[in-house]
């Protein structure tokens, strides 16, 4: 039970505090910027040619103020904000009125989750195993070749890499093997038949490839370095002295130990991975939360952006918490207090 007290509870408190901090930042950003979002909205409405009679202007402002949650003092707003959050009320999308933010996110989330989870799983495992082998056999030719490839790919930001793939494989400039945008072909009806699934996979191929290769390159390089360090650890030298078969050494001694910091690394990198997935979706027009975000930006749908941000904060922090709590399963040294 000391585990609970000394580790679990502080960790949970940290979890809640981080979420609180994140959401508070989200709350304060619009209120700290020099623009008045209500007046901005009014300006935009007028710019679109909406005619407003004098009397209704006040009502519009009042309505908008309520919708933006800007009534009352900051403390009032803050409480009201949290009140709504606890009811799961993310508000209404400004530009896809009357669709609620929750609806829109619910529709886009599965696409993003599918993409993110598969690419993360593949890039983490494959990247680490290949990086591990490359680190152990670092003098071999294939190891150096892979390292050079990773050297070229790793520093590229998600957008540039995705965009390069787009130019290379989905445009008229080079090859035109993949579709340019969308999750499925236009007019395709979602159903569980093979045709639709193939269509979806074909459309998801480039974004998935982009995320997997980039993530894989990062994991590859980090793992290679880790393995080179683990290689010089005394227990690896000892296994070699003991005449343990090489396969066993690579698997059970080297990679198994080098993998441990990568679990933590995954937790730390989830925020970046997620942002990267969103950005990649935007490049390929993939109908996940990335495209949702893009449309929200273009249409200044502030409520939607806030909703996406809040869900992201909660989702990522929770995923990190889960990873952290499962870490003792892999490293017996932290199990015993």
């Amino acid at each position, binding site marked *: 039970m000391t585990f609970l007290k000394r580790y679990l509870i502080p960790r949970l408190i940290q979890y809640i505090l981080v979420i609180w901090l994140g959401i508070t930042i989200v709350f304060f950003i619009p209120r700290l910027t020099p623009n008045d979002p209500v007046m901005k909205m009014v300006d935009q409405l007028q710019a679109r040619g909406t005619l407003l009679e004098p009397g209704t202007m006040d009502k519009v402002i009042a309505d908008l103020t309520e919708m933006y949650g800007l009534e009352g003092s900051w403390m009032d707003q803050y409480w009201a904000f949290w009140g709504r959050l606890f009811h799961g009320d993310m508000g209404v999308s400004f530009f896809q009125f009357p669709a609620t933010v929750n609806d829109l996110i619910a529709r886009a989330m599965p696409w993003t989750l599918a993409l993110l989870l598969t690419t993360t799983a593949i890039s983490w495992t494959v990247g680490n195993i290949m990086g591990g082998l490359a680190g152990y056999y670092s003098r071999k030719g294939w190891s150096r070749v892979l390292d050079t490839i990773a*050297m070229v790919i790793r520093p590229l930001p998600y*957008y540039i890499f995705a965009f390069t793939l787009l130019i290379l494989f989905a445009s*008229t400039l080079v090859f035109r093997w993949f579709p340019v945008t969308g999750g499925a072909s236009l007019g395709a009806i979602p159903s569980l038949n093979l045709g639709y699934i193939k269509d979806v996979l074909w459309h998801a191929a480039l974004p998935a490839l982009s995320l997997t290769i980039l993530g894989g390159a990062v994991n590859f390089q980090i793992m290679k370095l880790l393995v080179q360090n683990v290689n010089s650890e005394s227990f690896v030298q000892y296994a070699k002295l003991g005449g343990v078969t090489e396969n066993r050494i690579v698997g059970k001694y080297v990679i198994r130990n080098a993998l441990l910091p990568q679990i933590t690394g995954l937790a730390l990198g989830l925020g970046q991975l997620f*942002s990267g997935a969103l950005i990649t979706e935007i490049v390929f027009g993939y109908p996940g939360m990335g495209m949702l975000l893009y449309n929200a930006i273009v249409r200044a749908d502030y409520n939607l*952006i806030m909703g996406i941000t809040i869900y992201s904060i909660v989702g990522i922090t929770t995923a990190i918490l889960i990873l952290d709590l499962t870490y003792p399963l892999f490293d017996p040294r932290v199990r015993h207090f």
Partner: protein
Amino acid sequence: MKVLKDLFQDYRFAFSFVVLVIILIMAILSFFSPYDPTLWNVVPRDMPPSAEHWLGTDSNGQDIFWQATFAVRNSLIISLIAAIVSRVIAILVGMVAGYSGGNTDRVLMFISDSLLVIPLFLIMVMIAMLVREYMNLVVLGLMLAVFGWAWDARLIRSLILSLREREFTKTAVLSDTGTVKLVLNEYMPFAMPLIFSTLINNMSWAIGLEMTLAILGLVNINIPTLGTMLNWAIYYQSILLGRWWWVLTPVVLALFLFIALYWLSVSISEYLDPRTRVQRVGA
């Protein structure tokens, strides 16, 4: 110097050095540009590369090569501001947290870790949306700086923690050296290689983020940067219309820049790290 000669043995350093020199030259060339980057229609539009316009012209009626020199210059300025300011913050936070320990450490690290965990991209989208009009190079640089220090603050803190336990610290404390003097004079030399390599990585990160934000239209698109050039190129459908010279210029320049910055930081850190030096020995 011998150091440079040794470094040039590493193909990565050689490549990045050459690339960065070229890019720097481009940035400096911008001061000699015959065209004003803020004016439109100064040259005929959408012309492919020729002797007169080395990289062709764009749909705004601008010479792409000279536009690119400004773009490179501005992107570098933004990233330098972001990287330097965030280094300063990271050093301050890391050193204070590492040296003080206790609750100060815990609070600072909590803030730092939270910044790592929270999806900063989305936060920056939110901020950028609202300050779009006021966005200039400095503002953007500062915004990136405020969010870019967390990772390195932790690295510096670890370094300080290990240095704190060393003999020379105890000697310095016993001889009544003031804390600030101790930290600045004694610890800085150890931190320098770390700071330098993270500076370069941070620059790369800053440019990447600037480009991403620019393409989403969240910066002042009238200031030429690598990102805004790409934004304009996409806006005018240059891929679809086959105007490769316009869209490829910022992309190719950016690719080289990212790879060069990364290779520079890796080759230098490997050169300085005593462990990898030993691996170079006795092959």
